[in-house]
Every structure is written in structure tokens, then in C-alpha cells.
């Protein structure tokens, strides 16, 4: 067999294949639900209901989507330039860490001043953290996939060390947990009385900003050029390594905003279970969005919906929540296959 490029894929092909990918994911999830002894239709129904079936459910999904938009953007930006940042988990914690360090009393400023400073500090922390793998790649040619992955483990241990040491909350009753940030360091709710904070708004704004950057700015053009064909970009005079470093700074900063938003908007303090793998899930969000920043918003809502829905389904139907992770993994694999097949046709030759 051989792959042959398709000049102008038809609309049914462009829409039908991704739909087929999602459909196949649902079929596999149903089979797995049956293996657990549950009725697949009720399981799927419960997931949908748990994700979008009530005001509470929708708000929960939006809250869960917020960090995923940030980490999804982080992956989308980096992958567009073919910089494989798999370390969003560590960058997220770096943002959370700096928020807690500065926000628990070190800077006792009013909200309108404190919050932007915290967000900026988080961006810087994430950027600096990813700078190391970026420089190792551009200076020494060390593969960033492995270094960013390993950094996740190192940084989580570092956080654990701080939470059992200098950052440990004296009121925490022995739990490895930081003190709570000041009330001034909390992101306000978008609508009074509804459990949805401005981190979500910041996420949407970030997505739009990234989209504008990618399509309108010279830096965005450079990032796309480097990602598509680094050799041609270098020949054309684009400083490839500088672009990669800038990409890394942006990507790390975006991932760190997830940590800032989770601490300042939701949790109020730093714990080791702040993120149930938001950094890794961001990769799936980005891939499902075809690396499109606006698409990241929708992909994040989809992914968050599956997680939130699966949580409540699991309680009701006694099917393990890991069904959600399986669904995402299969959706990811089917989706990349479907996208490839919209652009290439398989010919027997």
C-alpha cells in the first residue's frame, strides 16, 4: 500500500472521517462498558448528563476545561513549531508554586495589582522552566521529548520537597499542603453566585491572543515556518534556534497560567494533587484541536466533559473512571489517523 496526497479533499471527507473517529471511540467505550457489566447506552447517557446535564454539571465542566485550555494552548503552540514540550505538567506546577510563594503574604497588594503580577510571575516561571530543555536542544541537540518528560518527575519531587519543608502549612494538620493565598490573590467569579472564576475568561482570551499571534504576527509566521520545514526556514534567513527558544518561552508560560488559575481561581493552595495530569491531557486537547488555538477551547470542553461526565457516571453505574482516559487515548489515535486520511488516500500499488 501507498499514500497518495489528495489535492482538494471533499467536504464529506474532511468532516466524515473525524466524525468516524469520534464514533469509533464511542463504540469502543460502549464495548468496555459492557465488559464492566453495564448498559452502554446508559453509561454514555450518564456521561453526557454528568458533563452537560445541569447547570452545576456545565459549570463543573467549564471549570475543568480551564486548565486544559491553557495546557492545550501550550502544546498547540509548541507542536506547531515541532518543539515537543511534554513537560506542561511541571510548568503548570511552577506557575502554581510562584502563585503560592508570592500570594500567601509576600506581596500584600490589592487585587487589581496583585493578580496581574501573579499571572505574569507564573508565566515567567513556566517560561524559565522550559528554557532549560529548549537550550539543551538548541545548544547540545538533546531531544526535548525525554528531557521535558523527565523534568515532570524532577519538578514534582521538588514541589513535594517544598510542601514537606519550607512551604508546609503549619495549620495543615500534617498534610503536605501549602498555606492558602490571600483573599486578594483569588480570582473573582465571573457571575456572582456561580462557581466559575475568571481563570476561564483568561483562558479564552489567551486562546484568542495565541490565534492572532500565529496568524498575524511575524513571530507566528516564523514558528509555523520552523515547524513545517526547519531547513527551508533556516535557508530563508529565519533564526531557527531563536524561534524555538521563543516558542518554548511562550509554551511554558501558557502552561504555567494553568497552575496560576487553579490556585488563584479554584483551590487557593498548592497540593501535590493540584493537577490530575492536566499537562499530559493538554497534549490530547491540542491534537484533537488540530493545533488550532480556537479549536483548543472546544477540544478542552469536550475532554473536560468526558472527565466530569465519567466521574459522575462511575458513581452511578459502577464503571471505573479510567474509561474516560481510554476514550481520550482512542479518540487521539483515531483522530490523527482520520486527519491523515483526509489529506492522503491509501492506494494499493
Amino acid at each position: 500500500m501507498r499514500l497518495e496526497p489528495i489535492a482538494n479533499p471533499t467536504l464529506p471527507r474532511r468532516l466524515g472521517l473525524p466524525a468516524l473517529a469520534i464514533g469509533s471511540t464511542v463504540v469502543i467505550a460502549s464495548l468496555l462498558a459492557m465488559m464492566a457489566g453495564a448498559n452502554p447506552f446508559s453509561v454514555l447517557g450518564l456521561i453526557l448528563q454528568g458533563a452537560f446535564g445541569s447547570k452545576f454539571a456545565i459549570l463543573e465542566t467549564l471549570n475543568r476545561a480551564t486548565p486544559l485550555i491553557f495546557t492545550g494552548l501550550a502544546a498547540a503552540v509548541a507542536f506547531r513549531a515541532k518543539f515537543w514540550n511534554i513537560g506542561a505538567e511541571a510548568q503548570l506546577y511552577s506557575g502554581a508554586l510562584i502563585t503560592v510563594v508570592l500570594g500567601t503574604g509576600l506581596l500584600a497588594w490589592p487585587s487589581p495589582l496583585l493578580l496581574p503580577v501573579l499571572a505574569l510571575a507564573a508565566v515567567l516561571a513556566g517560561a524559565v522552566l522550559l528554557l532549560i530543555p529548549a537550550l539543551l536542544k538548541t545548544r547540545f541537540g538533546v531531544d526535548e521529548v525525554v528531557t521535558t518528560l523527565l523534568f515532570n518527575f524532577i519538578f514534582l519531587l521538588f514541589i513535594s520537597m517544598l510542601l514537606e519543608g519550607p512551604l508546609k502549612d503549619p495549620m495543615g494538620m500534617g498534610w503536605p499542603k501549602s498555606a492558602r493565598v490571600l483573599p486578594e490573590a483569588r480570582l473573582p467569579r465571573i457571575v456572582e453566585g456561580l462557581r466559575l472564576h475568571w481563570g476561564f475568561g483568561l483562558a479564552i482570551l489567551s486562546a484568542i491572543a495565541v490565534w492572532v499571534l500565529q496568524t498575524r504576527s511575524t513571530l507566528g509566521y516564523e514558528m509555523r515556518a520552523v515547524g513545517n520545514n526547519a531547513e527551508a526556514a533556516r535557508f530563508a534567513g529565519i533564526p531557527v534556534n531563536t524561534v524555538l527558544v521563543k516558542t518554548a518561552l511562550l509554551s511554558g508560560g501558557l502552561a504555567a497560567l494553568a497552575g496560576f488559575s487553579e490556585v488563584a481561581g479554584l483551590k487557593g493552595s498548592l497540593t501535590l494533587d493540584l493537577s490530575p495530569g492536566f499537562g499530559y491531557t493538554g497534549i490530547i486537547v491540542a491534537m484533537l484541536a488540530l493545533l488550532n488555538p480556537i479549536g483548543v477551547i472546544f477540544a478542552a470542553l469536550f475532554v473536560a466533559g468526558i472527565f466530569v461526565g465519567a466521574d459522575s457516571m462511575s458513581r452511578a453505574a459502577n464503571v471505573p473512571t479510567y474509561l474516560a482516559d481510554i476514550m481520550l487515548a482512542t479518540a487521539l489515535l483515531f483522530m490523527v489517523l482520520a486527519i491523515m486520511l483526509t489529506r492522503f488516500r491509501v492506494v494499493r500499488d
Partner: protein
Amino acid sequence: MARDGVLRLNDITKRFGKLIANDAVSLTLHRGEVVALLGENGAGKTTLMNILFGQYTADQGAVEVFGQTLPPGNPRAALDAGVGMVHQHFTLAGNMTVQENITLGVQPLFSLRSGTQTARKRIVELSERFQLKVNPDARVGSLTVGERQRVEILKALYRDVKILILDEPTAVLTPQETEDLFATLRQAIANGLSIIFISHKLHEVMAISDRVVVLRHGKLVGEVNTKDTDPKAMSAMMMGTSATPPDIVPAQPGGVLLQLDRVSTADIGNAPGLKSISLALKAGQITGLAGVSGNGQAALADLVGGMQAPDAGTLTVNGDTPTSWTPREAVAKGIARIPEDRHKTGTIADFDLTENAILERYNSSDFSASGWLNWRSARDYANGIIEKYDVRCPGADTRIRLLSGGNMQKLILGRVLEAGPQIILANQPVRGLDIGAVNYVHSQLLAARDAGAAVLLISEDLDEIITLSDVIHVISEGRLSPGFTRGEMTPPELGIWMAGHGFEEAAVAS
């Protein structure tokens, strides 16, 4: 005659979408003969050979070897039937030894014995019999192009082939190496082999073949015995009558625009750097660089194109010596760069024509202000190039990967020539293009020359260099010969330089 046909292609037809790559082509190869398969790029030669080797399945027709019909689409079938092919782009693993490359895939995969000793004996024996000298233990990556071709031929002979197909085998050889290759081929014929020789070089076809088969636009348009024809007649058959090469008027050289004074650059891997070369590119003149591929052409192109700064010596452009030398600096100095590989370095496949058109100048004030792009002026610019340089495409928002090589090259030409450059670096500007596009590119280069540009033309095709260049330098192992004016040297004389002779004497004389 018909009874001793060793290979027969019967009525082969192959379509790719709307394009008919092979249109009912029939061809018979007899025992002990050399058939030249002649045709321009895109005439369907490669497709035909890919069908023979089971890489493609024909829509119609069959392949017969020694009377047996080959099962379609099975790459092993042709090999097992005794057909071997030497591809134009060598299929060798550079990090492995000659012997490993030759024995790859010959033994059953799941055998526990490597048979190293017997294999080695056989390689030595074959290389002596066919005058193909190579060291079985050498890493292929360390060999010259000519030596690599010998390994390719040995690969086929090692499998005991009866039919040998060579695809453009002389494209990368010096005239002397070509002679050696022909000696080997005659030896092969004497040993009972039959040969298909694919080429578009007419004098070589005259020298080696018994019979000529001509393909044009996928159709077989002529079949004659070599002794009954001449280059002129073959050329007419090959091209039809439409295309004529551009007329060339004598050059009017002006002042020196780019000067290299004893410039050296480091070797990169197996690719030699420059060894203290001096070169002056004059306005209104085409300077041709002849040489066997891999002798420092890439290093010189990288230097002039700004990809590599001199390690020693000085580079002077328009009278000043730039302190930093980067691609951006080169573009700013008015150097138009046509890269060797359109797909890998010249364009970004998934960018549209607009995005590709501004690739070198996206951050100039024409297309952007304080970091933000002005897509409208970029699109206007791209549309201008599309119109002026006759780039055939559905529109400026087409992804460039969907364009043919010729149209891609036209966009690159437009991109670099639009600014009215003073210096043009044309690295293999017509490789892989059909004859119409070749003539177009050549006429554009000549027009730029006549408008006063200094052109550096790098090509592995000696004919192209001789036809277009006003001054020819030969490059060998990173060393540069003195300049020879148009007509000063015959091809065999240039061949001696290309083989690396004369440089020491010239160095002493200067």
C-alpha cells in the same frame, strides 16, 4: 530475433489520476544487447521501471522475464527473476559497509549464518571480473560518488542478474568515470547480460547502445537501431519539435560584484569544505561551476548563500566585507538564491504561495510593521509573481506542495528575481524539470545576466554548464580551478580537472 527476448513489456498502461504516465508501452530486450531508453524528465521512464520492479501495479499490460509473466506489485519478483536496477538516487545505507550493503536481503532473513567469508570472496571475485574496484570493508558514507555507483552495480551482479537496468548512471560521473562505466558494461555484455540504459544524454546513448527506444509524454514514439540514427534525429524524437533552447549572445562583463579571496570552510561530515579558493563573480556574466557532485559545490553554495561564513580568507560583496554572514545578510546584500532542493530548502510544502513568496522578506517593511504582517500586500506581491512568472496554480492561497516542480521553481525564481538582484546563485536550477521549464529557467537567467547581474551557476550536468557559462571553474575536493572562458576547454579536458588533476600545478603557478 523475437525468440531470444529476455525481457518483454507488453502494452503497459499506468494512470495517476488524470495523468497517463505510460500509454500502452511495449518494449523487448534481447540477450546481450544494450537498449537505451531515451526521454525527457516526466516522459514516463521511471514509472515504467517502477512497474517492472513491482513498486507500482500497471493498470494494463504485463511484464515477462525469460518467458515468465511476473506477478504484479511484487518487488521481489523481478529481482528473483534476475533483473537488477541501479537507481539514479543510490539506495545505499551510508553508515554500513560495502559488503553489508551488497549482501542485504540476499540470504533468507531468518538464517542464523551470516556467510561473511563466502560473501567476501564472491565480492572480491566479481569486482575483479567486472573491473569494479572497491574495498568491501569501507563505510559507504566515506566513498566517492563513482565508487558508490560501483557498489550499486556490484549489488546487482552479486545477485547474479541477467538483466541490468541503469537509470541515468552517468549523471554524477566525470567523462573518464563514464568511460570506466562503459568498459564495465561491455564486460557485462560479454558475460551474457542484457542492459537497459536510461538516459537523456545523446552522445552517451550513441556510444554504448545497440538500439534506442524513445518515450515522450508516456508514449513510445520511436524505436531505431543506434547505427541507423544520429543525435539530431533522436533529439527531435525525444522533444517533439516545440521546444528550442534559448539563443545566447556574447556576454558583456562588468565589474566584480562578489569576490572570494583564499576562502576556506570546514568539512562537514563527508562533504568537503572549501580549500583556500579565490573567485570573482562579474556583472553581466554567468560563471559556471563544473564538478562531480559532492566535491564542495554545497560548501560554495552555502558560502555565497549566507548559510556558512568563511573560516579563513575574505568574502567581499559589492566592495565591502560583511562582519556577520547569514542568509538574511546575503538577501540584504542583493543576492538571489535559487536553492539546490526546491522541496527541502526552497519552499515550505504546507505554506500557501503567498506565505512562500515572502519567505525571505517577511520582516521587511514591505510586508510587516513592528512585528505584525500585512497579508494584503503579501498577497498582492504573490499574485504579481504568479502573473509575471506564469506560475500555473489555482490561486495564491494554494498550498505549494500541490504544484508541479516547474511551477514551484517559477515561484522561487519570481521570489528572488523580483527584487532585481545583482548577484544570483543558481544551484542546480533545472534539476528534475521538463524541457519547457528548463528553457524558461535558462532564459530567465540569461535575461538577468544581460540586465547586468552576476550569475553563479552550479550544476552536475556538464552540458548545461558548457552551454550557459561565460566562464567555467571546476571544483574538486573543495579546490577551485582557474577560470576558463567559453570554448577554451573541451568536455574531456574539463573532465581531467573534474577528476582532480591539475590543481597542484595551478596552485604552484599562481
